[in-house]
């Protein structure tokens, strides 16, 4: 079931919760238009509670329940990337890469260089063998989020293992270690790389 189909199924549930929301003078469903600064977005309590509950489902790896709840969230609150990102991760972990990709892309529509969203999508693409697309996402996102460690590391891994672009990997791991000097794992990788590149 794709995202849209799922959304339709969920609409019935939404109607129920809507009635409750209206009774408590909660906000009406928000549009999916981009906001200049979604950090200032005020989220209704019920949505926030649902999001919180979805996190519990996710931690319990109860992905179907988490997905259902998150779909209910994005049905009502379309301005924020976070629910979409979590939804994407949930889909991926439940084996539905297609819906996962859609969810991540949805998040990126709201915030094109959202570090977590770009990172998740790039990793997904890497796993699907779409290395070039992954690299492009990493690079673009890093331009805006140069300090976001997962991006720095993951681009390094992509370059090292899959693109076999050792210089790129070297640069990324160096950058990573410059940001996170104490990371032993990456230090080892860097050492291995330096050995292989003779540097």
């Amino acid at each position, binding site marked *: 079931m794709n995202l849209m189909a799922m959304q339709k199924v969920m609409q019935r549930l939404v109607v129920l919760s809507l009635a409750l929301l209206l009774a408590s003078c909660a906000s009406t469903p928000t549009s999916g238009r981009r906001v200049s600064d*979604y*950090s200032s*977005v005020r*989220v209704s309590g019920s*949505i*926030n509670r649902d*999001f919180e509950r979805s*996190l519990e489902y*996710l*931690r319990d790896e109860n992905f179907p329940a988490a997905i259902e709840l998150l779909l209910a*969230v994005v049905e009502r*609150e379309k301005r*924020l990337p*976070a*629910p979409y*990102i*979590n939804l994407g*991760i949930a889909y*991926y*972990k439940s084996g539905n890469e297609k819906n996962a990709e859609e969810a991540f892309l949805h998040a990126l529509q709201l915030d094109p260089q959202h570090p*977590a969203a770009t*990172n*998740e999508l790039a*990793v997904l693409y*890497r*796993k699907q*063998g779409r*290395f070039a697309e992954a690299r492009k996402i990493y690079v673009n996102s890093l331009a805006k989020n140069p300090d976001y*460690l*997962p991006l720095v*590391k*993951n681009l390094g*891994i992509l370059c*090292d*293992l*899959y*693109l*076999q672009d050792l210089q790129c990997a070297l640069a990324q791991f160096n950058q990573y270690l410059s940001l996170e000097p104490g990371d032993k794992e990456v230090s*080892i*990788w860097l*050492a*291995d790389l330096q050995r292989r590149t003779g540097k």
Partner: protein
Amino acid sequence: MKPFAERTLVSAIVMRRCATAASMALLLNACAVNGGKTIGSLQSVDIEIKEEHIDGSLEKALASYQKYLQETPESSLTPEAMRRIADLKIKQAHRAEDAAIDSAVGAAATSGAVVAIDADAAAPSTRLDAPTRASAPIAASQPSAADPGDNGAQESDRDFEARASASIAIETDNTPLQVPGGDPDAMLSANAREAIKLYRDLLAKYPLYDRNDQVMYQLSRAYEETGQIEAAVDVLRDMVAKFPNSRHIDESWFRLGEYYFTRKKYLDAEEAYGRVIGIGVASSFYELALYKRGWSLFKQDMYEMALDDYIAMLDYKVSRGYDFEQQSNEVERKHVEDTFRVISLSFSYLGGAESIVDYFSRKGERQYESLVYSHLGEYYLDKRRYQDAAKSYNAFVERNPLHKVSADFSIRVIEIYKKGGFPKLVLDAKKEFATTYALNAQYWTVFEINEYGEVVEFLQSNLIDLASHYHAAYQNKKLKDNKAEHYREAIHWYRSYLQSFSDKPRAPEINYQLAGLMLENRDYHGAALEYERTAYQYPVHKDSSEAGYAAVYAYREHLDNNLKNAAASQRAPLLREIIRSSLKFADSFPQHAKAPQVMVGAVEELYGLKDYPQTVHNGRLLLEKFPAAEQEIRRSAWILVAHASFDTEAFVDAEAAYGQALSLTAADAKDRAGLVDNLAASIYQQGDLARKQEDHATAASHFLRIRNVAPGATLLATAEYDAAASLIVLQDWTQAATVLNGFRRNFPQHKLAKDVTKKLAVVYQESGELLLAAAEFERIERESEDDDVRREALTQAADLYSAAKDSEKALTVLRRYVKLFPSPMEPALETRQKIADLYRAAGEQQRYLDELREMVRIELRGGQQRNDRTRYLAGNAALLLAEPSFDAFAEVQLVEPIKRNLDKKRLRMKAAISAYSDLIDYQVADVTAAATYYLAEIYLHFSRALKDSERPSNLSALELEEYELALEEQIYPFEERSISVHEKNVELLGMGIYNAWIEKSIGKLASLVPARYARAEDAGEYLPSIVPMAPVPEQASADDALSGGEG
């Protein structure tokens, strides 16, 4: 009004008859009148003895005079009294004679005795039907009825001469009449004798009596009456000698003339009459004298002189205002008639008509000249001298073409020729007449047509005669050489008539004949026009409707004979005419038996001209107007209405009309099937229309009702097929399936049967009847000759069986596929893949593997048909086939007996390596990566197996240590080998290849060479907050703490 010929003849004949029978009596009357006047004139004499009207009787007067003589002494009045007594005596005698005649007439009325006067009175009844108008019937001119003048009752010239020139003397009238109570002759003689004695006594006694001329005159008469003619004449001679100025001188000379004439002393008579004439018009005998001198001269063969007298007499009459046309004075009229007759006689002796011309040219014209010509004409006619008769009339007409009688004369000429039996001359005369007196001729610029009804009447009948004559001649086979000319003439005269007399009662009849002639001459178009004119341009007449019909007939003949092979564009205008004429006919003469037939013909032509709206309109009109028309006609009309409705896409109307047509069509009619087809087509089109409007429910209902409404229609199959198609669009799968199955049952051999199967397959598929759908696909495969279709159908069938969980049937179908279509190889391998999958799903491992092996085997021999896909399929099959070799290798545990098991494992390892190594040859990335992965795993497994192998139990600690070292040395290379093989997979990344096997190899390497490959990405971390986390507050507060705060 009687026509001229009739009128003229009547006068002529009346004149003659009267002359024959009654002239004597009439002349006598005339004389009596004159005589009375003469004798009566005594009454006006101024004498003392007055002419008394004595009441009672002549006898009383006589007695009175006699008494006077006896009682009165002789005086100067005595001779007068004596004369009176003598006169009365004669008068008494005359009265006795009159009584005798009256008695005879009265007796004749009952006795049946022939009396001349009666014959005269009876004459008119025969005269009336004398002339014959040329009322020839159309087809042929009839000879005119015989003129009554031919009846032989004509007076001969001799008789005429005798009668007309007869003296006024009484001597010829000696009819013995029996008078009751006495002998009138004796009485008369007796009285006359008494009178003679009295007159003679008077002359003797009173020789100087001043009225002795009168006495002598009376004496002469008394002698004459007593038969003493010579004595009478002597007295007259004496009297004219002695008393040349006597008041009785003219009468006396006339009587002398009569005396001489009677005795054929014509010269003397001529002189005596001349004396009277010499007295002039003052004499009452002037006119008679002219007449009689004419006769005297005539008798002497001095015709021109005779004519002079006759003409003088006529001139005199004219001068007295005599009207030749008068009818009131029969005696005078007859006299004039006799005069004309003797004039005719004279001219005939002088050379005929030319002599008249000559005479009047010399003597001066007379206004009554035409009568001279006409009388001469009639005279000749009596003599059966027809040419001369005609010539007489023509002579006048030629000289007086614009005379008012010329037309009448011309008619008479024609009649004369007719009587004479000169058809050629009659014809020529008629033609000339028709031309000369045509309504537009010069003649009528002089005379008012309306006043010449007879002439116009004659002109009409004349034109008809001419037309009829030439029409008959045209039809006469003996005259076929001149057929064309006769045709032209007939047409000319018919047209002449119609141009002038289209408003006459006979005009329609004549027009009808003209049309008939043209038709006979195959001038069809002309005939059609004339028939139409006959039918519609006159008030309704007996031939109206037949002409209307004939017009249509002629138009059609024209079309068939003259435009048979003409181009449609040339035929169309005529067809329009035919249609117009036909419709007009049917509209004007609905009672005509052929009206419906003609109308249906028009409707047919309208359809032929593709004038569909009019076809429908008039077809329906026909059916409305002629509900009782013949069945075949009504049927044709319905068919035409139906066709035209269909052609104008009025399919509902067309359906109804075809239905009507069929109800009038016999069950075994040849065209029945065609009509049924058309009915079906009408319904089908309604369905088609609905279909185009995407109203598939209506469309389907139309298509489906054809079966009941038009059973046996050719397009029934198509309709039902289309119904199914519409039902499919409507997703009415059940109904669609019913219809399609019905189709298959009803039309098993139909060319659409295969499409029905396909449709049924779709229907069943869509309706969830997967098994039925699959069966239809199997059927498609069987019915099709197209291998592509067959392969596709089997594939579909198998998929449907699989979807319906009927693996057995799916396998059967797939097996059939690979059996029937081993080539092309690729789809065959795909099919075998499905077979293999089914076996695997069914747990039939052996069959599954067998199938995989078969795939590998077939693919290896594929030659040119091998491609990436076949290699992929075969490679994967081979990969799967290789797995048991890995399992077999892996399952061998290195336990006691070590050596044997080791050997066994080595052996199997070798086999597995071989199997996987072979897979590389497929050059399929996935397979290669998989094979590489397995190869690496074989080595790794072997190194682990060695590591985990059972140690010999009989070794010392040292030996065991050495054993371990030796084993280590064995293990290490296999592990290294495994790493390097896995890295081969990683190297595939450099070639742009990436798949699950490579990822698995990386996963393996991550544990084998962690520093190099254990690269876990940072991902999958849930965002803990729906809104972005606020900037870290702790740091801010720490900074604040460090700075000690602002301010």
